């Protein structure tokens, strides 16, 4: 039976230094969610996950974490994420009241970053359960905007394609970095993402 385990018990100084630099780079506010004003069509939907650092970091981290775990999670996490995100999206479309969405999004970045930094390899169902909670937060924020979109079809297509593309970038980067220095660079990136999550949590 597979058991949850943490690889490595400490965070190297280089991870902390690089994470600090990454946080300095995250000067843009968490702007991907609950935008003011109406949303448009494909371009608006496609730009939305790419221009908001909080959403981008979380999607990238999902791909990176899957690649770090290896095996079936390489594709099962990016496949599950948009499907569960839709549940949150529909809740947002229907206007189901939910509190703490922005906090949940920030926590998702922090948790996923920490999971990568500590090379946490839970059982697949555990990883899926964790990202399910976060996917609902991300989906809700986007779904709340969808009915206002000028063209909901194009907006949904652009939004899902951009989200999937960020996952694929995360998988690609993760698989590439796993071959260098036994995946230490992935863990450095994970620590940087976790610090980004702290930033969004505080602001």
């Amino acid at each position, binding site marked *: 039976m597979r058991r949850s385990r943490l690889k490595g018990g400490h965070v190297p100084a280089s991870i902390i230094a690089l994470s600090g630099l990454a946080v300095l780079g995250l000067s843009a506010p968490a702007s991907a969610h609950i935008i003011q004003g109406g949303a448009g069509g*494909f371009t608006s939907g496609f730009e939305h996950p790419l221009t908001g650092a909080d959403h981008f970091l979380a999607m990238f981290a999902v791909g990176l974490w899957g690649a770090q775990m290896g095996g079936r999670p*390489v*594709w099962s996490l*990016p*496949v*599950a994420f*948009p*499907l569960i*995100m*839709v549940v949150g*999206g*529909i809740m947002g*479309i*229907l206007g189901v009241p939910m509190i703490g969405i922005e906090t949940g999004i920030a926590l998702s970045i922090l948790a996923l970053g920490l999971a990568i930094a500590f090379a946490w390899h839970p059982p697949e169902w555990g990883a899926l359960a964790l990202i399910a909670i976060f996917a609902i937060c991300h989906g809700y924020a986007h*779904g709340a905007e*969808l*009915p206002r*979109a000028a063209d*909901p*079809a*194009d*907006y*949904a*297509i652009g*939004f*899902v*394609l951009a989200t*999937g593309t960020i*996952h*694929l970038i995360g998988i690609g980067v993760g698989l590439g970095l796993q071959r260098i220095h036994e995946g230490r660079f992935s863990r450095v990136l994970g620590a940087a993402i976790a610090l980004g999550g702290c930033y969004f949590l505080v602001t």
Partner: protein
Amino acid sequence: MTAALSTKARWIGPALAFAGVAAILVVVFALPARSLLDWWILTTVLAPQQVLPLIGLAIALALAGRGVLVGGLVAFALGLTGGLAGEAVLLGFAGGLPDPAGLITPAASIVVGLGLLGPRVLRAGLVPVAALIAGGLCGLFLRLSDPSLRDPAFPIAGAAVVCWIVLAVMLTLRVLRRRWFDVAGRIAGSWLVAIGLMHGGAVIARAVRMEQMPPEPQTQPVSPAARPPDPAVPPGVDPGSFFPDPDTADALPGPARPRGFDPALQP
């Protein structure tokens, strides 16, 4: 001879894709004027929400074995014909849904996405069923979006474009097939299901909100005599003399216009 034939056959898909894209580019950039048919194909038949399920179906067929591929293509053709011919029957199934026409492409995305997402063992049975349903929905979409008054050229051209998309993508992917395509197909399936659910949810939410909106109050038209005087018009001047009534405009002196000519409808 057989080997040479099979080598040539490998390029049918990419050649088909290239020829179709070239034809679209000619219509978009080279033709001096577009007909209603060109306009309909470019804006409706090739709309992203209509094309994505077809690409998904092509991926599913490209990943399938030869038997499932043939069965899927036959099922798609049957579904497409049924959708074009059985508009009333298919719409009858969706009687209680809000905005059934708006839910056609989301439903196609979900069906095709589920066909791609299913386990490999079940895919042999899922793909032909998904092809049949997607074909029916596609035919229905073509029929309902047809702007002509039952001109047979429209559904025929629309069906040809739809078949071109499925065949060109499927044949091209079969040539380029790699082992990781199976994983890529599942990821594409999840995207299609997500797009379909979000788009469908937005369509339903919008339709429900429209139904719940109170009707606009009816306003009676005000007769010209009862209107307050316009301060911009000098006293003693009849505004109708420089803003002619459109109903009587044809009787005014000026260049002759053909019967039924409406300047407001001109580009």
